[in-house]
């Protein structure tokens, strides 16, 4: 390998580590060994080689792919596709005007209707080159914009044409519409990747790696998630619940040995002449708690509340009983939505619809909500139950009712508070994190990994 390649390899690994993948030196050496064993004629082979040696968790794969595209780009500049533009220029055609835009959209519609991956890749590159360039911007600003290009070409307006073409191929209407949506989504991702590639070419891959690569879905903050991320996160909830449940059963089995069963031990010792070679134990009684969840569903933390409720719902077998309440400035019981076997998507919709019952004026007021809870639902808490409060403890500077919270946590067996904000934002503005945290232990819970760890620890 030439030194340039080694440098690129090392900086690629550093970018991976910075993005949260734990790449050890041993794996680094494996990757080098893999690269020496692989043929270099296909970029996908090299990518597969790197992935096999460096990425050991599937959730990290999107991050890896994005970084690989930046450090080992598909092509440089306009690649060979640029030739066609030269031909156009020779004809005297302008590269970027209304006519060129219309012609480009024609071409794009055809490629999308065909579903031709290669053509779509080329068009994505051409689209950024022609419609996403922003010449003359100041230094330090990106000179290529996927956003501008998408706004100008707006491929989503082509959906109807693609659907028609697909229906023409004998597909059903619904099916065709979904497929069209999928293709346009794929094309959008290609355009964004191409913009990243061009920026990386101009400013160096490190720059892009620092600003443009999102953390993997299980480490993404609930509060920073976009719509599409939320959808993906929701799909992660059930696998997470299943993993947690398996882990819990295994761990409970491991420490299942209870006190010595004297009768069985003595009886078993008969066959060895009265010497108790093997001891027998009584099984331990499984201990299940009743869980009471009290969660803030105001706009700022609604996503977090939904995910936690969903996870609790998915794990309800692990609890004796689950009761859930939502609040903004008023308390509303939502336990009845958690029917066994219901579809999580439906549950979420119903929960969202019932949010209205949790608000009187619509301004978060923890103090009032706690007081209402004590007034109406104090019977929910008992010596066997655990109280779990979800929220950012931002109470719009209203009375905190710390006494009520003290009484509530005192009547429950355990109490925890999950806060979806980063610890450094606690106590800023109207957050009463520390003051509530003194009464009920407060835990930072920003992403699915932390949520999973917390739920595992309390069970």
């Amino acid at each position, binding site marked *: 390998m030439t030194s340039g390649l080694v440098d690129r390899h090392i900086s690629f690994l550093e970018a991976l580590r910075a993005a949260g993948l734990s790449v050890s030196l*041993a794996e680094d050496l*494996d990757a080098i060994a*893999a690269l020496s064993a692989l*043929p270099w004629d296909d970029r996908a082979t090299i990518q597969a080689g790197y992935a096999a040696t460096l990425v*050991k968790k599937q959730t990290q794969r999107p991050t890896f792919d994005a970084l690989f595209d930046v450090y080992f780009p598909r092509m440089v500049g306009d690649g060979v596709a640029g030739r066609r533009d030269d031909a156009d220029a020779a004809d005297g055609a302008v590269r970027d005007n209304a006519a060129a835009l219309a012609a480009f959209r024609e071409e794009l519609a055809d490629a999308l209707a065909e579903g031709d991956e290669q053509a779509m890749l080329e068009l994505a590159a051409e689209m950024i080159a022609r419609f996403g360039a922003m010449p003359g911007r100041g230094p330090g600003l990106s000179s290529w914009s996927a956003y501008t290009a998408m706004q100008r070409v707006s491929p989503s307006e082509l959906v109807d044409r693609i659907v028609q073409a697909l229906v023409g191929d004998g597909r059903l209407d619904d099916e065709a519409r979904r497929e069209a949506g999928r293709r346009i989504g794929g094309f959008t991702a290609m355009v964004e990747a191409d913009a990243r590639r061009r920026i990386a070419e101009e400013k160096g891959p490190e720059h892009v790696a620092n600003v443009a690569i999102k953390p993997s879905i299980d480490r993404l903050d609930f509060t920073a998630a976009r719509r599409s991320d939320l959808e993906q996160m929701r799909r992660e909830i059930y696998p997470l619940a299943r993993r947690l449940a*398996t882990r819990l059963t295994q761990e409970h089995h491991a420490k299942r040995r209870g006190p010595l069963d004297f009768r069985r031990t003595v009886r078993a010792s008969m066959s060895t002449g009265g010497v108790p070679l093997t001891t027998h134990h009584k099984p331990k009684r499984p201990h299940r708690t009743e869980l009471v969840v009290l969660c803030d569903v105001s706009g700022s933390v609604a996503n977090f509340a939904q995910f936690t409720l969903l996870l609790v719902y998915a794990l309800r077998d692990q609890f004796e009983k689950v009761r859930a309440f939502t609040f903004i400035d008023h308390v509303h019981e939502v336990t009845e939505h958690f029917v066994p076997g219901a579809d999580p998507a439906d549950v979420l919709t119903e929960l969202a619809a019932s949010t209205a019952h949790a608000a009187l004026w619509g301004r978060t007021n923890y103090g009032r909500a706690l007081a209402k809870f004590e007034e109406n639902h104090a019977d929910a808490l008992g010596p066997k139950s655990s109280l779990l409060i979800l929220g950012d403890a931002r109470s719009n500077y209203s009375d905190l009712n710390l006494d009520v919270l003290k009484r509530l946590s005192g009547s429950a067996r355990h109490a925890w508070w999950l806060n979806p904000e980063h610890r450094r934002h606690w106590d800023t503005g109207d957050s009463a994190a520390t003051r509530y945290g003194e009464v009920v232990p407060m835990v930072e819970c920003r992403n699915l990994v932390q949520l999973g760890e917390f739920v595992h620890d309390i069970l």
Partner: protein
Amino acid sequence: MCARGYAKMGNMPQPNPWFSSPADAATRLAEAGYLADPTTATTAYLAGALEKPLLVEGPAGVGKTELAKAVATVTGAELVRLQCYEGLDEARALYEWNYKKQLLRIQSSQGSDQEWSATHDDIFTDEFLLTRPLLTAIRREEPTVLLIDEVDKTDVEVEGLLLEVLSDFQVTIPELGTVAAVRRPFVVLTSNATRELSEAVKRRCLYLHLDYPDAEREREIVTSQVPDLEERVAVRLVETITRLRELELKKAPSIAESVDWARTLVALEIGELDDKAIADTLGVVLKHASDQAKAVKELRLRS
């Protein structure tokens, strides 16, 4: 002492019996009826070329175990399989002393005036050793594919046991010394990811995530497994399966289940996969009542 135990790796370079290139892996696996995508082929080739264990993760029924079997078939290697389960221990995975036989040996030597030390040396020899899959795979001189199935089902302690085997391909038996592999086996570990494996195990392995294949490949798999299926029905079947996987079901249909479905359709002589046919045979692919209800609702089978 175990005679073949001390052959060190590298002393005698042996021809690598696995694949010569990623393309070679793809074509040869296809001959065994395993249609591998480029990533799978590349990773399988690397596992052979670098002689590192291959950890295959993915949902149930996407062909993780089949991959190991296919590698064994095309390379003419023997498959040694260790099925993992909760409570698996050293005695089942690695080796065990045949203590009954040892007892007999001691009893039979009691009459004679043999020294105790001689008897002691005698009963801890190869003859009294029961080898379990891991040790068997390491001691074999012919090409071997070692399949460690469903690693995630074991306890964490077994992972520690695997570490020595997977990194150095050697096993330490206190009475015999260290048994090193004469010839490194092609190791495939499979996992359904119900539990996160330890970093140490993952670091020693190459990693491959097998997912549901794209529509094109799945159709190829279905038609290669069930040649009697009509092309038109196969297309419709794969479309429906893809659609079902997009729904959030408790258990998404696996490749094995799409093949089963194809067989069912052939057996029932259904030549047209319309809504009624789908609704009637849905039980083959979806095994939960709530999943079926959801599929019927989403696909609008009975309106």
